[in-house]
Structures are given as structure tokens and as C-alpha cells.
């Protein structure tokens, strides 16, 4: 069964590493839903968080192939782990008018989404949450008319204290 997997690759910070990682997935025929590469507390180490759709067998191949890259230190498919904090971030601009503004604000409240900006015709909000919750917020805002949104893609961290490895 094909489903979304969140994969974290810990990599050495070398030129072209993002291209290597995403290129490898493309080369092997996988579609990347999102990819985030960002520095960590160690300046030599970056983390790349990928959301990829595929079957369990395919994900096993993806992680193994990624592990083969010389600059990839570690790969985990966090869909297999429970103790992970996973978040995604969204900024969304919704069309509003005087009549429905309070309704929009009320819904935002339920999600703990924060307003960032507002004028007579639009309201801009932000939310950091699990991807599913963000999906739902988008679905609820749709009837009002979504002007624009941008999502960060998922990123994650283990709840456990870091083991020295």
C-alpha cells in the first residue's frame, strides 16, 4: 500500500548534497512531496527532511539507496517510529468580508492559528501543526476563498534525548 513517509537524512554539509539526495530519488522514480534542508547545531551537519509517497518496499529501497550516498550519515523513516515530534508550517491568505470575518477568526482559534495581517479583503494567518491538521485548516478555509498559501513541508525531531553516537 502506498502512503506518505517522512524521511530524515542526516548529511555532511558538502556542496550539492541537496541535489544528490533529491536527484537520487528522481533517478529511481520517486516523487518528492516536500524537501527541507537546514543546518543543525553542528555546522558540519545538515538535516534533510523528505516526504515521499510509496509502499513499504519502496521506502526500504529509498532509505537504502540514500544510505549509499557517501555524504549521507544516517537515514530514518520516522513513519516507523512513534516518539517523533513532527511539524509543518503554513502561511495562508484567506479572502474575507465584514460578514464572515468573525467566523474565520473563530475557526482559526480552534486550530490555534495566529493572525499575521488583516485588511478589508484578506486575512493572513500562520499555523505550525501536524500535516493532517494543516490539511484540515485548509479544507475549512476553502469555502471562504483561499487567496494563497505556502507550506513548509514536514520536519521532525525525536523526543528522546540525543544519544551520543
Amino acid at each position, binding site marked *: 500500500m502506498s502512503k506518505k513517509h517522512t524521511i530524515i537524512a542526516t548529511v555532511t554539509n558538502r556542496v550539492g548534497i541537496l541535489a544528490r539526495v533529491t536527484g537520487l530519488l528522481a533517478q529511481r522514480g520517486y516523487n518528492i512531496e516536500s524537501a527541507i534542508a537546514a543546518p543543525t547545531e553542528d555546522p558540519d551537519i545538515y538535516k534533510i527532511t523528505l516526504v515521499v509517497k510509496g509502499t513499504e518496499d519502496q521506502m526500504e*529501497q529509498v532509505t537504502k539507496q540514500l*544510505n549509499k550516498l557517501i555524504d549521507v550519515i544516517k537515514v530514518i523513516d520516522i513513519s516507523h517510529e512513534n516518539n517523533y515530534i513532527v511539524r509543518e508550517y503554513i502561511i495562508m491568505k484567506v479572502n474575507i468580508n465584514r460578514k464572515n470575518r468573525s467566523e474565520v477568526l473563530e475557526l482559526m482559534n480552534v486550530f490555534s492559528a495566529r493572525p499575521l495581517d488583516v485588511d478589508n479583503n484578506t486575512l493572513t494567518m500562520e499555523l505550525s501543526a501536524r500535516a493532517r491538521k494543516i490539511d484540515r485548516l485548509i479544507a475549512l478555509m476553502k469555502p471562504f476563498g483561499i487567496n494563497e498559501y505556502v507550506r513548509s513541508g514536514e520536519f521532525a525531531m525525536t523526543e528522546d534525548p540525543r544519544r551520543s553516537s
Partner: protein
Amino acid sequence: MKGAEILIDGLIKEGVDTIFGYPGGVMIPVFDVLYSTKEIKFILTRHEQGATHAADGYARSTGKTGVVFVTSGPGATNTITGIATAKMDSVPIVVVTGQVSTKSIGTDAFQETDMSGLTRSICKHNYLVNHVRDLPRVIKEAFYIANSGRPGPVSIDLPVDVVNDSLPDYKYPETIDLPGYKPVVKGHINQIKKLAEAIKNAEKPLLYTGGGIISSSAHNNLLQFISKTNIPVITTLMGLGSIPYDHPRFVGMPGMHGVAAANYALTECDLLISVGARFDDRITGPAGSFAKQAKIAHVDIDPAEIGKVVKTDIPVVGDANYVLEKLTEMVDNSEYVEWNSRMSELKMEYPLHYDQKAHEYILPQYAIDMVNKFTTDDAIIVTDVGQHQMWCAQFIKYKQPRCFLSSGGLGTMGYGLPAAMGAQVANPDRRVVAITGDGGIQMNIQELATCAINNIPVKVVVINNSYLGMVRQWQDLFWDGKFSQTCLKKTPDCPDHCKGPNGNCPNRYWPNLEKVAEANGVKGFRVESVHDLEKTFSAAFAHKGPALIEVMVDKLTNVFPMIPSGKKNNEILFGDEK
């Protein structure tokens, strides 16, 4: 020390004795250092593809890392086919390409190509060196990566300013720090135990070995394992030579043009032990049909190979040599009498054969068999790609590892001659023979001159069937005999729809390979009759320098047995149906 000097010094420290390559603008500073380097022999090929295959042939025949130096842009792109060839067959080569200066990168400067982008998916690892201080580390890492774990090509792109810059406190590194690269060599002992247990319980175990046996020098341990267990063996194209062709337990090569016995063995076995092979689709056939009766054990140094194509019951990640040694300690002596007699029966029932006496023209198999007559066990046979390659796999009497070189994974026409040249440079005292087709020889024919000028005495046997034979065979068997663009004699005067040789075929054809050879300083021979074949070989092999024999063979002989693409391992064509 200047970057160029650091590069050469690093190579010497890595034990490099030979470089194949071709110069150009941005590489002049490097070639300038080579001008006065005595430790390294440089073979100036006539094309960068030739250099890359030569380095590959050097590497496959010795196990050492082959090295290529070429310039940026077109020089660099000309190496692509060679790099991809080496990648597919896990061959250690290091390809150093010149690059425009770091300040010009990204500006579409003269002869700039994004080599790291181009090679990313066809090499094991690549580098673009941005600063001279990185150079020593890069060289050290490149050689380590190329020839450890599962070997493969590494590309180093070297901007001209890096080569010219100086590093005051140069020291070649002694250690390597690659946190992301820790090739497993040992193999988990519990998994090996599991495998030993499975062997104990099996009645019809079958070993399926590949190139991994050769790259990990596991052939001796393989032979010991076999003599203790008497498990029959089938071997992939890449693994040929890891067990002598006439070993009593050797069943043959499986796959599309493998021997029937090996393919039937696959369908009948109850435990398949793959060691250093990768379940290529030329062997497995359609998904789900492969070795259906069998439990599958897979020993490979590359964890990504395990489970990639076929579901594995017993995975063992580890070096073939180590695993076989441990496994031999763990298993009991066994005979598998019934199963082995079944193997003998299959081998007797479906022998490979050809019948020269029944044919007027030279049969390609006969010509290839003739090579056996003129070579000893340590001869290195290098093939090109096509029908002749498969006949070589079927009829060459390979006895030792690293003696049968062939482009398996990529199937690169044009591989044969330059790879043979590289193997000969690496093994000056051994006989090296390139067996190639009338198509393939023309893809890197310029290297004849390289052989002649450098006294590289390869013997080139061209199996001339006047066709791109392997493609013509498919057209013959599956495309209603419509020989579209596979006849090398075809002229504009030929009818549009030709279904094979007939009385109206043009007599002339080009090139005249005998003359091409002679014009390149290589002794040329041409033989058309069965009667003259042995004499001609005798003369060519007696000749001191390089020689080329163009053997005019029967045009329409097909390679059998054959499992058509998409068919199962027991759906074999023998060529006598109809």
C-alpha cells in the same frame, strides 16, 4: 606545492603506475607536471571514451584502481559512457577532469560543463574541488571510495585555478574521515548461521554467484565451500572465471542466453544462495516467476541490493570472501547426490553445441572456440557487446577470475578494444584478446593506433557477420524478420524491405578492416574459409605486436538457447523449434 603537483604526488602515494587520458586547455598545468614524472606511465589514447574503458580494463584485470585524466567540456563528456559502464559493473576507476576556473563556473565559460551534475547518477561519488586545500583529502577519499565496499567509479572535477594555486603546508593525509561511508565487510554472524542452517535443511541448494566473488577475491573460498558442500553453481556474466568452466559442480551461466541447465536449475532448486550477484532482469525474467520453489538467501556487500528485485528470506550483508569463509566453517560435508545427478543429466541433455562440419561458412562459435586453442589459462579475454559476447560467455574456456572482461550491466558497444588495451598495459606479459563485432569494433577503432604506437600487443578478433547481429536476431525472432537498419552492408540501392542476404546483396562493404588495421600499424588479417581459419590465427598470434583478424562468419546464425524478454526461466528457445 602547486595543486597540479599535489595531484600527481597523491596519485603516486596511492600506488598509481598508469594513467590513461587526453590533454586539453585547463589540464595543461597537470600535464606539465606529468612531463617530468617518472613514476607514472601515461597512455595517450585517441579518444577519451577509449581512455575510460582502458582504465576500466586495467582495473577489472588487476583489481587496482584505473585512472583517467581528461580536459573539461568535450573531454569530460566523452568519459560519460565509460563511467556509466564502470558503475553498472562495479569497477573502481578515478576520473579526473579539468574544469574552468572557480570564478568562471556557472558562466557558460569556454568548455565548461557541469561534470558533477552530469556524473551524479552514474558514479559512486564525485567531487568538484573548490579550493586547493581540499585537494589532498579529495584524492585520498576518491581512491578509498572507488576501491572499497562495492567498488565503483569516482569523478574528480578540478578547476584550473585550484590546479595552479599553491598549498604551503601540503601533507598527504594518512587517515580518512567519512562518517557517512562505512562499508560493512564482515557480515552478521547470526545471519550466516541462519544460512548454514538453511543449507543443512535444503535438498536442492543452488549457488548463484556474480561479480562480487571476483571483486572481493573470494574465488578460493568459493572453491573450498563448493568442495566441502558439493552445491552446484551457476554464475552470471560478471562472475565468469570465478569458477573454472570445467569444474564438475559448475552448471553454467543462467539468463537470457545462458545454458538451459542453469536456467532449469533455477526453476528446480529449493534454496538459492546468491553471492555477489544482483538478480539482473536478464536473469530473473518477469517478477514473481523467478526461482519459485526456492528459499532465497542473498549475500551482498551492498545492502541496497538485498530485496531490490527479489524478496529475500535470508539477507546477509557482508563481503563475499568473509561470508564464504565463515559459512564453510559452519556447514557440514555434503554430497547432494540426487540433485547433482540431476544437474549432470540436465547438462548432458542440453549441451551447448555447434556443428561446423554441417556449414560451408565459418560459424561464429567456431571462430570463438579457435581463440581457446591459441590461449592458455591466464589469458585475458575481453568482449564487446552483441551476439559474439554471448558466444564468448558460452564457449570461452575461462579458468581464472579477472580473465573474462565484458560490459554486462550497461552493454556498451565499443568497450572491447580499449578495455583490452588497458588490460594489456596492466598485464604486459599475458595474452590479451579482444573479441568484438563488426559493429562494436568501429565504435572505438581509433585505439588501434594507440596499441600500435605503444607496442601494446593485443589480438583483436572481429566476428564479422555484416550485421548488428544481436539486434538482427531479435528482428528475426520477434519482428517478422524485418531487418530495419541492422545490415552494415546496406546501400541506398538496396530494396527498402530486405529480409536477409540474397543474390542481389552488394559485394562491397566498408571499412576494410584488414586495411584499417594496417593503416594503424596493426597487422591485419582476413579469413573467409573454414579451411584457413586456424592458419590465420596461428599467424596472427605468432606476430609480435598487435594484430587484428577479421573473421567473415555466417551472417544469420542466432544465439541459442534464448529466453525471450519477459519469459520465464524455463521458457527456453533452442533454435530448432518450428
